[in-house]
């Protein structure tokens, strides 16, 4: 491992560039799945989309993408505010637990 990788790897063990690439992929995914989600709610005729089996799959993908994108955005802002390795490790762990908990709870009990 080179020095940059050692510095950028936290508890999660993922490079910063990979985290940000996933952030962008999640963003584009949200554009597609979110558009379907919003349109099915706002347009009466498109409300039929909700009866499709694949709509549930769309919601799960949307939820996963939006949670990753949102919590990674929070992580980036907090990392800029408090650029300390110890804080970053704790924050990463907390955000991962929060994200996974929200994903499991919402996908099982809310959707």
């Amino acid at each position, binding site marked *: 491992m080179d020095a940059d990788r050692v510095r950028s790897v936290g508890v999660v063990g993922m490079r910063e560039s990979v985290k*940000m690439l996933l952030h*962008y992929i999640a*963003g*584009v995914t*949200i*554009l597609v799945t979110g558009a379907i989600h919003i349109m099915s*709610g*706002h*347009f*009466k*005729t498109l409300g039929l989309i909700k009866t499709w089996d694949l709509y549930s799959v769309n919601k799960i993908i949307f939820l996963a993408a*939006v949670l990753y994108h*949102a919590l990674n*955005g*929070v992580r980036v*802002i907090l990392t*800029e*505010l*408090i*650029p*300390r390795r110890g804080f970053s490790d704790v924050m990463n762990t907390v955000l991962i637990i929060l994200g996974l908990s*929200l994903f499991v709870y*919402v996908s099982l009990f*809310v959707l």
Partner: protein
Amino acid sequence: MSRKGGNRRSILEWFRIRGYSLEKTLYLFQRVSGIVTVGYLLWHLAFRDEAYLLPPEIQVPLGILITFHAVNGLRLVLAELGFTVGKPIRAVFPYVFTSLTGIQRLSVYLVVIAFFALVVVWMLIVLGVLGW
């Protein structure tokens, strides 16, 4: 950004846009709209059934912020992947930032135009003028 000194100005620095390029203003709006959207996301997950009961006074500005975040986010993805950055040139006085000219600046203008167009559509949907 030293460990001891920290990023002291941090959030205040976002709002220092005077004298900077248009991209700095877009950066500020991207951050602010992102934070507001995270707040809405948590609220939406907690009160799922009330999502469509929001009054237009809240739906319209919220939709405007989310629309901006999405459109400008697409520009950022294209810049990140290198499509709108431009080729590097030899640094000769007077210096010209190739990353802030040409197709990059064009993409900024496209973002602004697409943003206003989508905002009009969104407002027509929320106000019930557009819908089928």
